[in-house]
């Protein structure tokens, strides 16, 4: 596993490369900031919450989403194209018998272009090493006590796919509209460390 990103040789190389490009007059600090801001503008857990609320209220959208998320999310004005290359998005649905949780054990892959930067614990060695080894105990520490008959699948984003969990719609929300359901979904629910 890699250590903290800020101290890695890659981070140092990126900083040196930025300095050389700026010195050479090829790009300015402001332009680099604008590129990053453009990438992250609108990238927030709210996007994931909107996807989930739509899936809870529209069974046909849910089917399309689980079959091919890249093709389905443009229906909400979203895409996985915000980076240099389009990434594959895979949405995994919780059921009453199966809970899903995502991780990147090799580094910290996460659907940043869609959800914004990941929480710091997601990048920690403690989370990355423990969730593949003893997810039930780890989720318990997150305050998510799963019944014994719920099986757990951990999705390790080790290649070019990025994952999103589709939580179960909470009980007692049958009367709520799609718009009213959106605020119920948390970033942790989209990662799988919370129920919703």
């Amino acid at each position, binding site marked *: 596993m890699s250590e903290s990103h800020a101290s890695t040789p890659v981070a140092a190389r990126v900083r040196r490369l930025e300095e050389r490009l700026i010195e050479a007059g090829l790009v300015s600090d402001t332009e680099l900031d604008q590129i990053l801001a453009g990438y992250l503008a609108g990238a927030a857990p709210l996007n994931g919450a909107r996807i989930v609320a739509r899936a809870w209220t529209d069974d046909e959208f849910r089917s399309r989403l689980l079959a091919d998320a890249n093709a389905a999310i443009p229906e909400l004005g979203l895409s996985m194209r915000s980076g240099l290359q389009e990434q*594959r998005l*895979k949405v995994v649905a919780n059921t009453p018998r199966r809970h899903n949780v995502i991780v990147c*054990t*090799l580094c910290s892959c996460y659907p940043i272009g869609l959800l914004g930067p990941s929480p710091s614990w997601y990048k920690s060695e403690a989370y990355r090493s423990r969730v*593949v*080894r*003893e*997810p*039930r105990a780890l989720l318990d520490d997150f305050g998510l006590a799963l019944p014994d008959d719920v*099986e*757990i*699948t*951990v*999705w*390790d*984003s*080790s*290649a*070019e*796919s990025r994952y999103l969990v589709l939580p179960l719609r909470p009980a007692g929300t049958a009367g709520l509209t799609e718009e009213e359901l959106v605020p119920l979904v948390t970033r942790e629910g989209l990662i799988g460390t919370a129920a919703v």
Partner: protein
Amino acid sequence: MSNASSARFAPGDRVRVYNTDPVHHTRAPRYVRGHQGVVVESQGAWPLADDRARGLPHPRVEPVYTVLFSAHDLWGSGAHSVTVDLWQSYLEAVTEV
């Protein structure tokens, strides 16, 4: 692409991750090397991370598979499953005995 390889595995196939330890970057996590799993999905073809990290001008393009491992196989205990996304050249076919 000329250096794209065709798919050798399909969902349901049993595979083993090669137990190699290359000196260069690879995205076969150490904890699954040498272990058996089952292909659950084909993800299409993607440039091989190992070749890209080495700066090779024409990285191989290979199918990537979602491979499901049982915790018991990986750690000797645990009832959960772990899926890992693996490029084709990380995998060999397992023939049932």
